[in-house]
């Protein structure tokens, strides 16, 4: 592996072949000769482990985006390669994969991880290695200031923004007394904390918090804790047991009286809403990051995106109608890849010596209109918090399909900056 995309001279180790090419660094012809060499991007993939179901669709979406990108000429006229490495959805392995992609494969930048604990476990190494690390995670960790200046989330909105944006519509249309059911770990706690604050700001109140331990496989025993006065049942569940949760909710209530139900599609990613046992979801509402069912007013970009990734109008794979996509999250890979292109072209990126310029170029981005590169919708990027903001969607299950009933404004999800990464050193 002697492809060279420029090693900074401060590296004190000797790589085979390095000696030969190191002298080439001094030659003026080097930059010219290297500019047609491919740009290498590393993708930290959850191919195995608890995130594998998402990982599969992340990989598909990234491959599709890569093809489109290369068909359009790549970045700065250079072809782009993506190297996938499995991190097993494990933080320790994640840090090692970052290492491998940056140091061994010589990637210009790394993107892709979803699960928060893996992101937080891997980000320090990315910061130490000074490699741009663009996560596709929807966690609040980037914007919270806990990570480093090399870590960014330009392709997907974060949970705090999502949850905050839901509060106005929920309190105005569903009810003001909420019971929340959420997993008893960090992701769930974020929902608990931010939604409780956001709904209080709308004049509503969360009357009961029901935290469910992470490895729970049966939820019936928690359902009696839902108070009778509940107007809205808010649920967000993650993991293999989500279908059980929804089914048991249905068994518990049956066709009798029930509160309004508002869930996050995380509860049903990769699951068909028309599955048997989910009939009671009819008439309930969901947050969607990206509408799974193709809506009547879908843009041409949306159509193009679906065709490229191989997803039909119901959000399932074109080749297998039962293989439902993780549609609300996977667009992050597509949009992040195109953000990398935009950033590299704005920075005039040539080699890894320009990584810092790339980060600064992305930090300088502000409004990003909807386009083929951004099929989910308009975005606003906050260069200080390294977090992108966008529209959120609320859908209603009608005849077994999710139909959009509301689109939030980008401002609905905004919150005060918790950090200014641009003041930090690289």
């Amino acid at each position: 592996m002697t492809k060279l995309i420029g090693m900074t001279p401060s590296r004190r180790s000797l790589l085979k072949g390095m000696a030969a090419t190191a002298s080439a660094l001094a030659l003026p012809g080097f930059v010219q000769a290297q500019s047609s060499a491919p740009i290498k991007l590393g993708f930290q993939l959850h191919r195995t482990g608890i995130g594998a179901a998402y990982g599969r669709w992340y990989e598909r979406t990234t491959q599709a985006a890569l093809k489109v990108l290369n068909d359009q000429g790549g970045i700065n006229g250079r072809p782009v390669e993506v190297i996938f490495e499995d991190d097993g959805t494990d933080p320790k392995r994640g840090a090692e994969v970052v290492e491998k992609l940056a140091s061994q494969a010589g990637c210009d930048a790394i993107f892709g991880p979803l699960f928060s604990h893996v992101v937080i476990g891997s980000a320090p190494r990315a910061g130490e290695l000074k490699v741009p690390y663009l996560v596709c995670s929807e966690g609040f960790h980037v914007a919270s200031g806990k990570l480093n200046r090399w870590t960014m989330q330009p392709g997907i909105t974060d949970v705090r923004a999502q949850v905050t944006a839901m509060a106005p519509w929920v309190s105005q249309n569903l009810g003001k007394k909420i019971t929340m059911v959420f997993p008893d770990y960090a992701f769930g706690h974020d929902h608990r904390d931010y939604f409780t604050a956001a709904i209080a700001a709308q004049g509503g109140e969360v009357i009961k918090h029901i935290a469910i331990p992470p490895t729970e496989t049966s939820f019936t025993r928690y359902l009696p804790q839902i108070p009778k006065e509940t107007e809205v049942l808010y649920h967000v569940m993650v993991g293999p047991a989500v279908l059980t949760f929804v089914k048991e909710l249905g068994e518990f209530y049956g066709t009798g009286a029930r509160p309004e139900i508002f869930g996050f599609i995380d509860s049903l990613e990769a699951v068909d809403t028309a599955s048997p046992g989910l009939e009671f979801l009819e008439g309930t509402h969901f947050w969607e990051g990206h509408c799974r069912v193709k809506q009547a007013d879908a843009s041409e970009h949306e159509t193009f995106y679906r065709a490229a990734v191989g997803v039909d109008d119901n959000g399932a794979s074109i080749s297998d109608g039962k293989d439902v996509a993780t549609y609300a999250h996977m667009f992050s890979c597509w949009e992040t890849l195109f953000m990398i292109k935009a950033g590299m072209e704005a920075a005039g990126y040539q080699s890894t010596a320009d990584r810092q310029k790339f980060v600064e170029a992305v930090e300088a981005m502000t409004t990003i209109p909807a386009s083929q590169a951004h099929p989910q919708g308009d975005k606003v990027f906050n260069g200080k918090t390294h977090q992108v903001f966008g529209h959120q969607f609320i859908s209603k299950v009608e005849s077994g399909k999710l139909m959009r009933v509301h689109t939030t404004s980008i401002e609905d999800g905004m919150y005060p900056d918790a950090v200014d990464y641009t003041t930090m050193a690289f």
Partner: protein
Amino acid sequence: MTRALALHIAVLVALFAAQYFLPPYHHTNIARIMVLAVFAMGYNIAFGYTGLLSLGHALFFAAGLYATGLGIELWGLSAGPALLLGLLAGVAIAAATGVLALRTGGVSFMIVTLMFAQAGYLTILYFGAYTRGDEGFVITRAARNLGGVDLSSDTPRYFAALILFGVGLLVNLALTRSNLGRSMIAMRENEERSRMLGYNPFRIKLTALVISGLYAGAAGAAYGVLFGYVGASFATIQYSILPLLYVLLGGAGTTLGPFLGALLMFYLIDISSGYTTAHLFVVGAALLVLVLFAPKGILGWVRDKGAKWLP
């Protein structure tokens, strides 16, 4: 100088020299492996030498990791005192666990240690307000600094890991030669006979477990400071099985076995994931091959084949 001591010194010298030749990727890997080898050596002291099959060592590692991490992030300690705190946490938790768990033996002991480790993991989640639960937290880069040396940069980190590993290795070697070490082996071989000879099995096993906890806690504390992340995934059962695998692969009851096992296991996974996405299969198959054809581990096999002096 005995052959054994010479061998150990040679290994340490080789590791020291290696840092000038290793490509950056492998450089950090070896640093990681050395810290994990300390964890495995601790496990070996309990399992390989004393015969205590524990499935709860993740608890001791996590105790060191969290004590150090929380010390720095919550209580504002600097790296030095925080590392010490981590060490003490490993010792304390091992002692507490041992006092209760060593009333049992065999499979019951295994389950009891497993249960304690599970309870530890759940406790980390329960106090999520401080520990950030499963998500974990980052140790600020500025705090990863011992006496002015930035442990988050590659060369000092490698040195720190090497020093930790070297000390652990040589202490382990000394331990096997000492009376305590021999009595630990006696416990493993035949507890009843040792008791008849006047040894107190409970006290010896507890001492072994506490030393084991010291190593594990030290490894956890070091891992936090050197690599910057503290998370509940380190307290799960996978991290109790990991040192067991390293030790069994490298050779239980040998001093260099844990390091060899850690090294080989790491690269087995790393290299196989370059060829196939089914690397779980490779690991599983490797374990089967190992246990069928080299049940004493690699160094155990070497020792049997003639190198009887190998400690």
